[in-house]
Every structure is written in structure tokens, then in C-alpha cells.
């Protein structure tokens, strides 16, 4: 079968994507926007030279620890023997993680025992030798089977809803749902911990180097200042690696107990089962609209499917002005692993429903969905993006819903996002050595976003030297505390701290040069790595200048929670436009084109920023079309806890993705870009599928069976208002 070629392109023939981009090496405020800087650690990453936490072995050959887990949705542990496990050669220890025999486990993947051994195979053999037996119980496996009570509405609320709907000419009454998505980090969760008595060395996989360390203090029985935490590279976190987790805690406890390094990393199935997820949702919308496009309000009643998590299932769908809306949310428990924050927690599932509801409202009122959004989007800034995105995707080619002949129908959709500007204290330091080398250090981490590159670009720019001079260093508690990589705040918080450090380092270097050369430091500057005087004459090149130092300069940079002079203000906003082709005979959806326009204040490095957008879009495509943590309706066991049957978008599923960084001329400083690009994608795809078929697919993933059902619905004779 012939394959269509597809791939990620940002400079494609008929799309002029450079139109709104700044020209090469143009400087905005205090940072350089350039077209040429590639990831400084790209080669290390693709050649395997970069060592991730899972690759690290602290000191001597570590002991290997692993969990034995409940294989069913709900089951009582009826038998098992720690002694049998410890009789396996190479097994040094086995213990229950909580109650022993008789314990009732509440989800597939719940740990019941931990086994420590001298090798991976001995640990696995020991785990089997436990001989766990289970009495399986009936359980709820999703929101539907848990049959949540409808939310209680007061009389006033019912009246408000009825008033809103009565004022409308049309009503959209629809239930939207989204499936559980797992983080699917390529590097699994875990740590190698070496307790050495007075101190401990930890190699973890984390998106919060300092947070991980601080979470291990009590497990190690050490003041956190005695723990050296390292996390040089992270193979994905997406929100699930903010703390040490049970993997880190048990590695620490076992290392303390045995005084040896302990390596504990999850297998792929454990990743799907027990390291968090984006919870499922069910969202009941009832909204009224007038023929003139006024949305009169109604209700949005939502459920989050949080498994045993107890909470964290909120859906965030507040963006358009929907009039007077009563909102209620409940989290629904069932026998499944609990959620953890996942890339814009609550937002993709919320906007899946919001955007599709918007298009359904537009359809009943006979208004173009782009026009309806212009009427109800409160952001004037975002509306500037609408015209450009519509032009690039070819919105004028959009046909009325379900109006095309032939089996393959093309559809267009769009979605929006915004994201807060979260500020936390952050520190950094710049070290200038006498040999001219420069270190830009922060104890934050790089989970893939390009943090070394961003820090290096900022330090080089403010020192006035080429990036090649600067070694950016992250992922160690030897460096000053940097922010956690959650809430899209790594760059926004390290950039000002690094700017202060580099500026201070430069000041100290120039002071030394001035002292040595008997010049006035205020007259000196550094341009392209050369120290120049007021008339632009070179006093010394970089090496010569640094050789004048009597010792290294270590300049700290620090930024507090609020510091309006240093920090960027305002939120990150974005708009995405999508074009899909739906095969109405097979139900297969192919995404053809995505134009993703995002503003992030002043971007530091174009390539890594575009890469964030592309990554978010890909995760959104995958959420819209494929991903589904599927728990067996009979046993509650996850049936697809692998990368074969848990489906994630692959290379041949990629559309042409056009990332556009929308530069606001009035922006100051940086804003987050990690999370917002994954918010609008799935909703925009759902809208495009609706446009193509003529009936909505209200549940993600939008799989062929659901598409075929919608095709049938679209062909059925219409009744009622809609």
C-alpha cells in the first residue's frame, strides 16, 4: 500500500510561516530571538551520551528493587509468602507495602510488596515467588459504571438555567466525554539512591530536582542539605514527576536499610498503571443561543474520573462568554489508578467540550464558528491571531457541516487557549573562569524543553559573548535552587535570575579589567566577546580579559515572587486551526494540517519554542484520536498497559504542523509555553470532524467506530429544534 509522506514542517511551500516572525538575531528587550541556535545538548541526547536517571548508577553496583502489584481492579490478597521470595538466590529482602494477607486492593497496579535483590532477574523471580493469590471482586471501572448522582442544583439555579434556556432560540443539549490519557514518559519513574550514612546521593528522574530531594528527607532520615540530588536529563515528565513518588521513597528507604545503592525504576506497564494520568471526564452541556449569536447560558455539569485518586479531576472550560452558566463539578471514584497533574491539567478535556459545544451552537444558529468565536472570545489579543490562522489554514474553503459528497470529507476546526504566568522565586549563578570558560548554573532541570539552551542563550547575551563560550548546567543541588518544571514556569522564572547573574558577572569582570588597565569601568562594555572602551576600541579579547582575573567570578542572580522590573507580565495565549480528512466509509480520521499560533512574551530561542508548540500539538492529536487507558469492564484490569495496544500517534499520523510564535510588540519578559499548545488541539480536531461529517463525535478518542456512528446519525432524518 502506498504511504503518504508526512512530517513536521515549519517552512512549507504554500504556507508563508515567516511572515509574523521576527527577523534573524533581532533583539527584543533583553533577549535575543534568533533562527540559528540549536539545542546545545542535541548531539548528547541523540547519541546516547546524555545519561538519564535510569542510566545512572550511584557508586557500586546497586541493589534492584521492584513492586509486586495487584493484577485486578479490586481484589483481596488471599495468599503469598515473603519468605518464599527471600529464598530465591539473589533476593535480599521482601516486605509488604501496607497490610499483608487479607488486604483489599483498590486498583490494578496498586503495590502490595517490594522485593529487593542483587539483579533485575533475581528481583523479578522473587516477585513471582511471592506466589500472590487473589480473590477478585466486582468493581466500577469508569465514570459510567460508577453511576454518579446528578449534581444537586438549588431552586434558584434551576430557575436560572431555565431562564437562560427560555431566552434562547435554540438549545444544544449534549454530553461530551474524554478518556483517561497516561503520561507515557519514555523514561520511566524512579531513582537510584545511595545512602552513605552521613549523606546520600540520589539520581532521580524528575521535573523538580529540588522538590524530589526535599521529598526524600524523612525516608532517608537526613537533613535535606545532606542529600546530593542529580537529574541531568529527564525523559519526559508532563506533570507526573514533580515529587519523589513511591518509587523514590522506597528506593530511599531500602538504601537506608541496607546501606547500599538501590535502583528502582518502573516497567512500562507500571507506568501506565500507577504513575498518574489525565483523568477522564464527562461533561453535560445545556446551552441556549439566539439567532443573532448571543449565548444565553444554561448549565455545564461535569464529572472527573479520578479512580482512587479522591480528587484532581476538575475540567477547565472557562474561556468564551457563554452568558449565565451554572457550573457544577464532581469527581467520581472507581477502581483505577489516581491522576497526577498532566500538561495543562483539566484544560484539554475541558476545551474538547467547549470548542465542540461552540461549533454545535454555531451550527444550530447558522453562524460561522469563527464568527461566533469572534463574538464571544473576551481576548482582543487572541482575535488578532484569528485572521492569520484562518488565512493560513484556508478557512474560506470550509464547507457547511456535512455538505460534501463522496466518502472522503474535509473539515475545518479551531480552538483557543491561554495560560497564567506563574511566578516563583528562582536563583541562578554565572561563573567566569580565568581560562575564559563560563558556567551558567541553575538547580532546575531539563525535561526536554531545552533548558540548557535557554539558560545558555540568556547568559551569553547578557555577558556579550558567543553561546559557545557558555556551558549551561542544570539538574543538580550543587547549583542554586531553580524552579520546578510545572505550570510552564521554568523559563519564565530562570530567565530573569540568569539575566541578573550574567549582568552582575559582567560588571565584576569589567571592574577587574578596569582596575588592571587603570580605566574607568563605566566606560567599558563587552561586544562580541571583546572588551571595548567608550569609543569602541578593543581593550582585550575575552580570554585576555578573563586572564586578568585573580580567581573565578561567581555571580549570583535571584528573582523573587514578584519583581515587576525583572519579570514579564501577562498571560500566554494561543489559537489553533485544524484541517482534517474523514473517511466516512471506514471512520478513519486523518489530520492534514495544523496551524498553531502561540504568544509567549519574548521568546528566548526560536527552535526550542517551536519544538514546545509541536510537541503540545502532537500530544493533543494523540489525545483526540488514539489514547485511551482502557480498563476491562469485567475485571477492572487495564488491558492495554503497553505501547502496542495503548495507542499513541506515530510518525505516519503526523499532519503538517505549522508553529507560529506570535510576538507581541508590547510584551516584556518571557511567558510559559510548555502547556498551552496542547490545550486547543483536541477540541479543534473534534470541530473539524463535525464539520466534515455533519454530526458531532462527542467522545475522545475519536475512533472509527464512533465516527461511523456519527455518520449514521448525520444521515438520519432530523427531528426537534436542532
Amino acid at each position, binding site marked *: *500500500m502506498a*504511504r503518504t509522506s508526512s512530517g513536521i514542517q515549519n517552512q512549507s511551500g504554500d504556507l508563508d510561516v515567516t511572515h509574523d516572525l521576527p527577523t534573524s538575531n533581532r533583539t527584543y528587550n533583553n533577549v535575543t530571538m534568533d533562527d540559528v541556535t540549536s539545542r546545545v545538548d542535541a548531539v548528547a541526547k541523540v547519541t546516547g551520551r546524555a545519561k538519564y536517571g535510569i542510566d545512572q548508577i550511584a557508586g557500586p553496583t546497586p541493589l534492584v528493587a521492584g513492586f509486586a502489584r495487584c*493484577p*485486578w481492579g479490586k481484589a483481596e490478597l488471599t495468599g503469598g509468602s515473603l519468605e518464599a521470595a527471600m529464598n*530465591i*538466590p539473589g533476593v535480599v529482602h521482601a516486605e509488604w507495602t501496607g497490610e499483608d494477607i487479607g488486604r483489599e486492593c483498590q486498583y490494578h497496579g496498586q503495590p502490595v510488596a517490594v522485593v529487593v535483590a542483587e539483579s533485575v*532477574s*533475581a528481583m*523479578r*523471580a*522473587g516477585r*513471582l*515467588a511471592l*506466589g500472590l493469590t487473589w480473590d477478585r471482586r466486582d468493581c466500577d471501572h469508569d465514570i459510567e459504571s460508577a453511576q454518579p448522582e446528578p449534581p444537586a442544583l438549588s431552586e434558584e439555579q434551576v430557575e436560572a438555567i431555565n431562564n437562560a434556556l427560555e431566552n434562547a432560540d435554540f438549545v444544544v443539549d449534549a454530553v461530551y466525554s474524554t478518556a483517561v490519557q497516561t503520561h507515557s514518559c519514555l523514561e520511566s519513574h524512579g531513582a537510584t539512591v545511595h545512602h552513605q550514612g552521613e549523606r546520600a546521593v540520589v539520581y532521580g528522574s524528575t521535573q523538580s530536582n529540588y522538590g524530589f530531594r526535599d521529598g526524600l528527607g524523612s525516608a532517608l532520615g537526613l537533613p535535606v542539605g545532606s542529600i546530593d540530588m542529580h537529574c541531568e536529563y529527564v525523559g519526559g515528565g508532563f506533570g507526573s514527576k514533580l515529587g519523589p513518588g513511591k518509587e523514590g521513597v522506597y528506593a530511599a528507604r531500602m538504601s537506608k536499610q541496607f546501606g547500599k545503592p538501590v535502583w528502582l525504576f518502573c516497567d512500562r506497564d507500571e507506568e501506565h498503571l500507577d504513575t498518574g494520568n489525565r483523568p477522564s471526564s464527562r461533561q453535560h452541556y445545556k446551552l441556549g443561543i439566539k439567532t443573532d449569536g448571543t449565548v444565553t447560558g444554561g448549565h455545564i455539569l461535569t464529572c472527573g474520573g479520578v479512580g482512587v485518586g479522591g480528587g484532581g479531576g476538575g475540567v477547565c472550560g472557562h474561556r468564551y462568554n457563554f452568558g449565565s452558566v451554572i457550573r457544577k463539578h464532581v469527581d467520581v471514584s472507581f477502581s483505577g489508578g489516581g491522576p497526577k497533574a498532566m500538561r495543562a491539567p483539566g484544560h484539554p478535556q475541558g476545551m474538547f467540550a467547549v470548542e465542540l459545544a461552540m461549533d454545535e451552537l454555531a451550527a444550530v444558529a447558522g453562524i460561522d464558528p469563527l464568527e461566533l468565536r469572534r463574538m464571544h472570545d473576551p481576548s482582543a489579543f487572541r482575535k488578532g491571531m484569528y485572521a492569520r490562522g484562518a488565512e493560513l489554514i484556508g478557512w474560506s474553503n470550509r464547507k457547511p457541516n456535512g455538505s460534501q459528497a463522496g466518502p472522503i470529507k474535509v473539515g475545518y476546526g479551531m480552538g483557543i487557549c491561554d495560560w497564567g504566568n506563574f511566578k516563583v522565586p528562582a536563583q541562578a549563578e554565572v561563573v567566569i573562569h580565568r581560562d575564559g570558560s563560563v558556567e551558567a548554573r541553575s538547580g532546575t532541570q531539563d525535561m526536554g524543553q531545552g533548558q540548557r539552551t535557554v539558560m545558555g542563550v540568556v547568559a551569553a547575551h547578557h555577558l556579550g559573548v558567543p553561546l559557545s563560550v557558555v556551558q549551561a548546567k542544570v539538574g543538580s543541588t550543587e547549583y542554586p535552587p531553580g524552579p520546578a518544571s510545572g505550570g510552564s514556569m521554568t523559563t519564565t522564572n530562570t530567565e530573569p535570575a540568569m539575566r541578573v547573574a550574567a549582568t552582575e558577572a559582567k560588571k565584576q569582570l569589567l571592574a577587574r579589567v578596569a582596575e588592571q588597565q587603570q580605566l574607568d569601568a563605566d566606560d567599558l562594555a563587552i561586544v562580541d566577546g571583546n572588551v571595548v572602551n567608550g569609543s569602541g576600541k578593543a581593550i582585550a579579547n575575552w580570554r585576555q580579559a578573563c586572564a586578568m582575573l585573580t580567581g573565578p567570578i561567581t555571580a549570583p542572580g535571584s528573582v523573587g515572587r514578584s519583581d515587576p522590573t525583572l519579570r514579564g507580565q501577562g498571560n500566554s495565549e494561543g489559537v489553533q486551526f485544524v484541517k482534517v480528512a474523514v473517511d466516512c*466509509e*471506514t*471512520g*478513519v480520521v*486523518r489530520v492534514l494540517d495544523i496551524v498553531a499560533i502561540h504568544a509567549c512574551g519574548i521568546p528566548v530561542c526560536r527552535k526550542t519554542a517551536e519544538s514546545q508548540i509541536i510537541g503540545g500539538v502532537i500530544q493533543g492529536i494523540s489525545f483526540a*484520536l*488514539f489514547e485511551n487507558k*482502557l480498563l*476491562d*469492564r*469485567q*475485571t477492572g*484490569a487495564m*488491558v*492495554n*498497559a*503497553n505501547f*502496542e*495496544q495503548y*495507542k499513541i*500517534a*506515530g*510518525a*505516519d*499520523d503526523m499532519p503538517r504542523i505549522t508553529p507560529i510564535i506570535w510576538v507581541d510588540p508590547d510584551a516584556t519578559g518571557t511567558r510559559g509555553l510548555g502547556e498551552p499548545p496542547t490545550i486547543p488541539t483536541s477540541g479543534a480536531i473534534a470541530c473539524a470532524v463535525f464539520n466534515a461529517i455533519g454530526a458531532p463525535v462527542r467522545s475522545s478518542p475519536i*475512533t*472509527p*467506530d464512533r465516527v*461511523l*456512528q456519527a455518520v449514521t446519525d448525520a444521515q438520519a432524518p432530523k427531528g426537534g429544534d436542532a
Partner: protein
Amino acid sequence: MSHSDLLMKTEMAMPRTLKQACEVQSNGLHDKNDIPGMPLPVLKAAGIDLMDHWKEGLTAPGQVSNLLALRDPSLHRLSADSIGALCTLSAIADSTAVRKSAPVIAQAAESTATPQIRNVATAGGNLFQRPRCWYYRAHQFDCLKKGGHMCFAVEGENRYHAVFGNGPCHIVHPSNLANALSVCQAEVLVVSSAQGTEEPRRVPMHQLFCLPEDRLKSEHTLGPDEIAVGISYRAAPHSAHYEVREKQSFDWPLVMASVALDMRDDGRTIAAARVCAGGVAPIPWRMPQVERALAGINVKDTQRVRQACDLAIRGAQPMSNNAYKLRILPVAVSRAVRLAVG
């Protein structure tokens, strides 16, 4: 499998000749009397499916016979009517001879898995890989194939399971190569110690695989001492393979159809048709009713072609969550017919 199996050593034989491989397969690596009850070696080609089983704890063989060590050049030979058992899927997909002689085979090979897998996966391994049913593949489900007493798919998650075949196990056959070979009247060549290596036994495709009602723990009819060494097939210049998948990268088809047409001299009328559907039954599922209906039809008569293809679902018994396959199946067949006409 018990815990001691995991710590048990696995021995691997590296046979250089087919004769050696046959001896290993009938006697094991040691004299049979050394270790009474020791099962015969597991045959390994690229080892992809074997490692999947091993990692999930579904198998831990004491002995493996690594067929990749074989030096016999016929195992790698590709021609207009034969495929060596150790030919990679990439080699098959890239072979001009195969593509000209039977495009359906090259297309099926090309649509499998990923480039990385196709570069190592072999024709023989692809035919004899075990089913991908998620209940079979997960250790905690004691299903029929694993000697248990129930098929968990019946009351469980069966969206990817069979709509034909009558159970009691509802797997779908995983090999798309087998599907394509089935419409090329292929035969699998089999050797063994008893048979000898000079005159392989020829097993037609329709006798190679068996339904769960006939045999539960295996999907094929070969004996434990037999080794497939190659495939012979007949030219099918008017043939095509069409898959409908959720994902375009690395996914198993929901439904696939292989079609080979013999055309009359007028170039428009179908003289005879061979149609096989996959993703729908425990074995490659030939569709004689569609084949008969297609015979004599002018391929330009799209309505009659479509009517013939609509017969594809006759006799289907969908499960609780896979009736959607019945909508896709006639479409896949008719698209394969259209592609086969060229």
C-alpha cells in the same frame, strides 16, 4: 510458569544447516534421555514475538533454536514464485520480482509494523507469530489459549476481536502476510527429521492454520518437529492489499482485505477472484461467496462490484463491541478490488 523458570538457564542452539536444525528440533539440544520431560526447543527467527512473550512472563523456554544462524541460501531467496522463510519483510516489500508478480504480497509486507521491525522480522516469523489479543498477552488472564476455561473477550473488551470463526476463542489472526499469501494460492514448505530436507512437505495456506474449535493452544497445524523453510506462491499480477487502521504508524488493522483477480482477455471482466479478509477471524478468512459473486462482473460496473463485496459480511457474528467491523469490511474488500484492477 513458575518462579524457578525465570532463573533457569536458557540454552540456544545455532544450527548451521537445515539438517542440524531438524535434528535439534526432534531431539533437543541434548540427548532426550538426559533431561526427561524437557520440552523441544522453541524456534526463533528474529525473536520479536518470542521476546514479547518472555517479557510478559508467558514463556521462559529452556531451549531456543536460533534459525538466524542457518547458512542455507534458499532461506533468503526471493523470486516471482517463492519466498525464503528468513527473508525480511523489508526485503519482500522492496523486491521487484515480488512486486511485479504479486503486488498484494509486497503491499502486505510493507504495511506491517514499523521500518525497524520490518528490517529484522522474517516471513516465517510473521506467519507463525501468536495472536495479539490483550487477554492472551496479559499474564493474569487465564484464558482458553493458556489452558483456562473462559474467553475473557466475550463479556469484556472485544472491539478488536473476531466477527467470524465461532469461538470459543475470539482472536484475530495477526499475520497480514498470511492474508496476502492466501489469495496467491501459496504453499508453505516444511521440513523435519522424518520428512528430510530434500523434498519439503507442501502445506497449502488453507491447511496451515486452524480454528480454535479445532485446536486452542496453537494457531497452526505443523508438528512440533517441523520447520517452515519457505513459501511458494503463484503470480497474481492483478492483486492488492488494503488495510483499515486506527493509527497509520505501527498499528494492527481493524480490518484488512487481500484480493487477487484473474482477468479475462478483454481486461475488464473478472474471470475468477480470490478474496481473503483479516482482522476479522482467528485465521485468514477466505470469502467464497464474494469470490463467486465477483466472477463474471465487469469491473467498471461499480454497483455490481459493491453488491458482491457487500456479501463479505454474510455469516458474521459480531461481538458486543465490534459490529463496526461489519461496516468497514465490505469497504475494505471493494477498495482492494479496485486497487487490484489497477
